[in-house]
């Protein structure tokens, strides 16, 4: 336990999900990179600004012994901005992955493989005949 505790706990908690979401559908997320970028950045900056009122008003307090001691304007510990960036990334990426056209079929195939193994994937015999030269 030390000044990196809060940051370390945030990263260990959130990064695996962010990585899994990219493994499932990086192409779908990056194809909509403007939604990805602004959908994460704008709510994160807004919530960090809102957070400053809760911190000044003593609604909640970030333990100074377990955080870096690096502060943003309005006295918000930098870990709070990182928290909102990570959580909003999970929300925005999750939303793109469930709502993008074509993702239903992909998620269905992936769940099939998780449940029944690679047998759930279409085999060569399920695919249309390759045209002969």
């Amino acid at each position, binding site marked *: 336990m030390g000044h990196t505790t809060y940051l370390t*706990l945030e990263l260990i908690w959130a990064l695996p999900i962010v990585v899994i979401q990219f493994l499932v559908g990086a192409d779908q997320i990056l194809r909509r990179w403007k939604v990805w970028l602004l959908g994460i950045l704008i709510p994160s900056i807004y919530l960090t600004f809102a957070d400053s009122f*809760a911190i000044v008003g003593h*609604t909640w307090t970030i333990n100074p012994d377990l955080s870096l001691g690096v502060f943003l304007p309005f006295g918000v510990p930098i870990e709070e901005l990182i928290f909102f960036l990570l959580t909003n990334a999970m929300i925005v990426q999750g939303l793109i992955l469930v709502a993008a056209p074509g993702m239903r079929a992909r998620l269905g195939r992936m769940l099939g493989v998780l449940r029944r193994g690679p047998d759930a994937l279409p085999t060569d015999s399920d695919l249309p005949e390759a045209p002969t030269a």
Partner: protein
Amino acid sequence: MSYSLFLIIFVCVPLVVLIYIMRAHLTRGIALALAVLILLAVIYTTPWDNYLVATRVWYYDPALVWNVVFGYVPLEEYLFFILQTILAGMFTLWLWRRLYPRDWA
């Protein structure tokens, strides 16, 4: 500032505005997608956040919450996970419709 006042001013007010702007586009599919994200957010965040409060990574002023506590975490914090998911989700959908209208045709 009480935690509930924070939620009303900074989360509920912009959320009501977003829901009003998006009212014509709130389909069952959108509601279902948000419900799934909320469920996952609450399941995944609850143990982690309880650990943070238990180890005093952050702490709250007991005088500024309703005193309905599940585990180590006050009810308002659970509401925050839920409302943040809807707020960021609705904002993302608003952007998405504007920037990539072909996905919604």
